[in-house]
């Protein structure tokens, strides 16, 4: 870790002048000297503010710039692209160095693509609407609700394995469709990562409430977000080193506090 910090300090001190031969990322990025970061289309609050990642506002945007800085890449040399989930996992050349869209790290995904070490541990939260908002935060009560979730997220196995609802859940393509289904009264509750649930509850769905959360740490399969990279990416070690030193220095926690601070105060679900 010390050498790492030293490298970082050196890179910082020397700035662009030193970028001649020592930085870890050299020769490993898509465009020499630049870091290409992919986000969703659109990118959602609080991960990226106003769908404008280049502003550095929002949790993932801020982490991307912090990692780039840690690697010795100037903010101006960070470029953004947009991809869908399918584009991120398709075989063949990628158009990004790292892809940040709240991708949960799983062993099965790890076989097909590379993930950085986690930059956020997400708790799963239950967002309820209508009469269901008064449901107690207990598994036995939650089972009886009509459930929905985004089909492409790890909320689906969590829902089916942990909550195991009595009626078959309905699955949707994205957050907006789940929102529409809640407003149409077709589902009582949906499972999201906590920050997304907070946003939807506060801004998108009138009369909705977060009735409980599954803590990230205690669950058997913790939901941790990692930056997605091409399988066998040479850049992984640089990104991991940068994340490790950001964790060490407390910078990552700082960013988390800045953008995701109000994610507490939601009751835990009793098993």
């Amino acid at each position, binding site marked *: 870790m010390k050498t790492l910090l030293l490298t970082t300090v050196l890179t910082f001190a020397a700035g662009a002048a030193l970028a001649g031969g020592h930085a870890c990322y050299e020769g490993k990025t898509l465009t020499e000297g630049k870091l290409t970061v992919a986000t969703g289309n659109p990118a959602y609050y609080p991960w990226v503010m106003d769908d404008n990642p280049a502003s550095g506002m929002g949790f993932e945007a801020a982490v991307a710039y912090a990692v780039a800085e840690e690697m010795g890449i100037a903010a101006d040399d960070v470029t953004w692209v947009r991809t869908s*989930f*399918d584009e991120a*996992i*398709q*075989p*063949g050349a990628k158009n990004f160095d790292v892809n940040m869209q709240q991708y949960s790290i*799983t062993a*099965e*995904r790890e*076989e*097909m*693509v590379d993930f950085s070490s986690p930059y956020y541990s997400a708790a799963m939260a239950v967002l309820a609407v209508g009469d269901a908002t008064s449901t107690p935060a207990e598994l036995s009560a939650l089972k009886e609700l*009509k459930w*929905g979730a985004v*089909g*492409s*997220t*790890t909320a*689906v*196995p969590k829902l089916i394995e942990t909550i195991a609802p009595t009626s*078959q*859940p*309905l*699955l*949707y*393509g994205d957050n907006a*469709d789940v929102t*529409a*289904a809640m*407003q*149409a*009264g*077709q*589902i009582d509750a949906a499972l999201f990562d906590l920050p997304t649930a907070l946003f939807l509850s506060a801004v998108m769905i009138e009369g909705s409430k977060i009735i409980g959360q599954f803590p990230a740490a205690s669950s058997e399969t913790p939901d941790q977000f990692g930056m997605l990279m091409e*399988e066998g990416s040479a850049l992984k070690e640089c990104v991991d080193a940068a994340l490790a030193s950001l964790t060490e220095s407390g910078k990552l926690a700082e960013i988390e506090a800045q953008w995701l601070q109000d994610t507490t105060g939601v009751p835990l679900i009793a098993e």
Partner: protein
Amino acid sequence: MSRTRRQIYEDKLRRRSLLIAGASSLAVFAAVIILVPLAPGWEKVAKSFFNWSVFQRTFPGLIEAFLQNIMIFAWSAPMIAILGLIIALMRDVRSPVLFPLRIFGAAYTDIFRGLPVILTVYLIGFGIPGLGLPRPWNSPYIWGTVALVLTYSAYVAEIFRGGIDSVHTSQRAAAQSLGLSERDTMRYVILPQAIRRVIPAQMNMLIALQKDVALLSFIGPVEIFRQAGVFKSLMANFTPYVGAAMIFLAVTIPATRYADYLMSRQAKERS
């Protein structure tokens, strides 16, 4: 019966062309099988599209989800046939008093043939339940089915109308000269001929409907397409889509062959 020299010559020609067709098909297949794996990205493509272990794990789940497709198809098809016929008959009314029916029929087919199915599914599937219908009347199964029926009956109506128009006007005249009422003419003279003529074309609509049932996945039901998408996301692997494609083909290829057979039989009868 002894064969003429001409027949013998023609048989020889036929055998020769069969042989050439066989050899050329074989050569093309061999080229594909040998050349495609030589492509530099083949290994990655094989791992993410033709992954045997992923296939084994997901295929049973896909078959189970396909039952939903069959269910939705089974209750939609008769409704589409009936509504399609009614619309076709509306467009054929000759009494001036009933002219508004003709306008309605024309507008109906114009609108629902002009809209992409997915848009209709979205607008009706989320829109109408959003008006505040209580459960279970806001079910996506109900309104998704309504969307499919509206769209497909517009196409089916046009095919029926084509069939009705194809019956020569002299038949109408003959029936009326025998004293049949307008209604009986349609029922006993025109429709039996018209429907028989359009059956092969309607078979094609059934095949298309069978595939478009998958569009209901956008509003919640977990049919085969959504289930494959869930597996795809969890494993970052496209093999479940290949599995789903195989299941679709197992149904649609026999159906297509049957429709072709009906058509060629009809062509022979006419000639």
